[in-house]
């Protein structure tokens, strides 16, 4: 194992990760964003396809063979079809059957639909993983140290950056294409497996050496009216019976939560946003997909309607509730990198103000600019937080990988006001710690942590503290809150890790390492 050094948060991180090269430690959320950081984009090789070739094949094996995939390469998928994705299992099983090994899997994220990867880790088919999310059997396998090389956790913006920088090079991208023509123009906004925006996949299409569009809905050329990923970026079209389970791809609009604790958090967060002064004409806004975050959106919508406040745009992972605000004229536009539910897909297809953006335009910190940097307010969730306002969304109470970095750190850094919702405890284990188990989002980018008991405001943001106090909101000192909770729950024993074995590293959006995740005992 490479040398471990302490980063700016005091977390030990390796200076080099096998298969991924050297890494600098995290030195501060904005250290590389001062205007003096530069990088050389790594050169990559791409094979020019033969002219006049029929791009469509019905054989998965033929598509893999034509792609030139070999042992040791890096392949990618997108997770826009969420828990309904059938593309990754379909392709990975064929790859395994063909005896290809030692692959690095670099999808935008891994969901519950991708549990089969755990078997491929055991079989040595997959020996490296770069992903935003890791959960279920994959998270368990990685946490148990079964992956040959440490996994890399990146944020959505961080992945876009890493691909553009050439830190991660994708040899073959297999991209689910809900509606595709025979030359490879495709979109996610229509078709039986419609999933909405293909914002993350756009990165793979632009930068991979070889791109295979995998579809179950082949239509006449040219695809109309919307093309998300154009034919010039696509080497092959693979036609299969089904690319996923539509019921799991496009769930109905998630209902607002009835959970009293979540509603209380959401209400306080809404009141804080109101007190902050950002809830004003021109508001730009993003909220996570969790129950409490969505409830904040609900309160916001009702208030904006009542007071006649018109915002400017919504960003993100777009839920039906954000679309609802667009349709009520509360936003001029929504910028959609990833759609969360069925309502969104129809809107993306039909509403010109519903704009599909790629992951780089969404959150790449090294881009010319990106949407998250223009956010006034973002509302996020947390698994647990610490008294320094650091947030963990990656590892569970048992230390096992069971979360996703997503756009958490990107939006927290970009937005003027970042609000993190967190219950005081989960199943009698306190969620406010001295030191959060895994830092995904550094405290310097978090303005407030909202719990059901009250609001903790980052002392860095004195203005917000004054505004919250003036609004008579229940502002709590985070140390006192932690002590009050521990008085009820007791202080949990630290998770026993094998600290000699790093099983994953958490990359901050700027490419530095913010934390290490160790093997569970």
């Amino acid at each position: 194992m490479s040398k471990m050094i302490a980063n700016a948060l005091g977390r030990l991180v390796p200076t080099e990760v096998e298969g991924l090269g050297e890494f600098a430690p995290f030195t501060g959320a904005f250290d590389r964003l001062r205007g003096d950081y530069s990088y050389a984009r790594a050169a990559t090789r791409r094979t020019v396809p033969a002219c006049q070739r029929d791009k469509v094949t019905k054989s998965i094996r033929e598509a893999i063979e034509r792609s030139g995939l070999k042992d040791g390469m890096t392949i990618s998928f997108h997770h826009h079809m969420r828990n309904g994705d059938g593309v990754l299992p379909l392709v990975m099983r064929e790859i395994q059957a063909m005896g290809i090994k030692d692959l690095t899997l670099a999808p935008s994220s891994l969901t519950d639909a991708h549990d089969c990867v755990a078997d491929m880790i055991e079989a040595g088919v997959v020996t490296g993983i770069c992903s935003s999310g890791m959960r279920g059997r994959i998270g368990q396998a990685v946490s148990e140290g079964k992956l040959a090389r440490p996994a890399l956790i990146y944020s959505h913006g961080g992945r876009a950056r890493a691909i553009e920088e050439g830190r991660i090079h994708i040899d073959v991208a297999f991209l689910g294409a809900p509606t595709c023509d025979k030359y490879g123009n495709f979109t996610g906004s229509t078709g039986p497996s419609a999933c909405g925006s293909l914002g993350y996949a756009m990165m793979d299409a632009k930068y991979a050496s070889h791109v295979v569009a995998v579809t179950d809905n082949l239509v006449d050329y040219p695809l109309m009216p919307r093309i998300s990923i154009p034919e010039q970026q696509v080497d092959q079209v693979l036609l299969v019976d089904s690319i996923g389970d539509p019921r799991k791809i496009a769930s109905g609009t998630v209902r607002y939560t009835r959970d009293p604790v979540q509603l209380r958090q959401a209400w306080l967060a809404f009141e804080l946003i109101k007190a902050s002064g950002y809830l004003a004409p021109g508001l730009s806004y993003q909220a996570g997909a969790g129950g409490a975050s969505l409830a904040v959106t609900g309160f916001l919508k009702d208030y904006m309607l009542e007071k006649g406040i018109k915002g400017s745009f919504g960003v993100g992972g777009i839920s039906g509730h954000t679309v609802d605000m667009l349709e009520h004229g509360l936003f001029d536009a929504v910028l959609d990198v990833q759609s969360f539910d069925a309502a969104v897909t129809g809107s993306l297809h039909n509403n010109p103000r519903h704009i599909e953006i790629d992951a780089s335009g969404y959150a790449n910190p090294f881009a010319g600019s990106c949407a998250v940097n223009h956010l006034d307010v973002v509302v996020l969730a947390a698994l647990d937080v610490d008294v320094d306002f650091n947030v963990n969304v990656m590892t569970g109470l048992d230390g096992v990988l069971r979360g996703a970095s997503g756009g958490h750190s990107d939006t927290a850094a970009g937005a003027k006001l970042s609000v993190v919702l967190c219950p005081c405890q989960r199943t009698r284990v306190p969620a406010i710690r001295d030191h959060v188990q895994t830092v995904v989002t550094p405290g310097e980018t978090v303005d407030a942590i909202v719990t059901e008991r009250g609001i903790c405001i980052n002392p860095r943001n004195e203005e917000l503290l004054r505004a919250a106090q003036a609004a008579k909101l229940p502002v709590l000192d985070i140390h006192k809150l932690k002590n009050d909770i521990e008085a009820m729950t007791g202080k949990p024993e630290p998770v026993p890790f094998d600290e000699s074995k790093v099983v994953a590293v958490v990359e901050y959006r700027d490419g530095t390492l913010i934390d290490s995740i160790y093997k569970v005992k």
Partner: protein
Amino acid sequence: MGLFRSQLYVPCKGPGMLQNCAYMNADAVILDLEDSIAQGEKDAARILCKYALQNVDFQGVGRIVRVNGQDTEFYADDLEMIIPCCPDAIRLPKVEDADGAREVDERITAIEKKAGIPVGTVKVHAMLETAKGVLNAREVANAAPGRVTAISLGGQDLAADMGIMRTLEGTELLFGRSFVVLAARDARIMAFDTPFTDLDNTQGLRDETKFVIQLGFSGKAAIHPSQCKVINDAFAPDLKTLKKAITVVHAAREAAARGIGVISVNGKMVDKPVVEQAEAVVARANADNMPEVEDL
């Protein structure tokens, strides 16, 4: 005595909800040992309730315990265990006459004495849930002065007792509500209204709450935390009323400080009942963090 505008039922089923009673926007919580608890779980619920009263910081939120009715085998044990924990009040189901009210008063008095608690510490909110109970509202309200500080209408049970269906408009409960609130006011105690059961109908809850406030009720039960704010907001005075009330209260305080008995506001004579009403309006507004006088 604090406000009782919103009174949230919390089943004594697990510590999860109980530890969060202070954070649900309710003026008071009704820790329930009765209908929400299965027969086989009554002992566990009672013990859990005791520990909650002893250990949870309710931060000023009123603590009411709904015990099992006098005709049940659990009633005596409920009071024996709960009264020594000094909740603000016991909510007693299905009270039908003055005898019932006197019986609970005597029983609580005995327990208070035994536990060394000042007699009269734990109040009783008597629930009138049958035709008989409603018709006897006056005698129940007057049966144990200082002990029975509120009567409440139990709409569901009353409808069942009468063999009628409840409607959104609530016409069928109009006489019962009016009678209960008159009886309460006559006895100078509070009257509480029955919960609104359609959780999805916020507007319906708002309308019904405003209506029962108009009738004279001091509070309304809630069956979900999301109802509490709606109820509290319905009780909150509008800004015009609040401004006027604040002016009256200020004038009254100023006059009292200067030893003047009669005051006038904007050239009009203001007497004691008006001042009392104005004080009540300001108290309700303060509970809601409404704007300070200077802000208006």
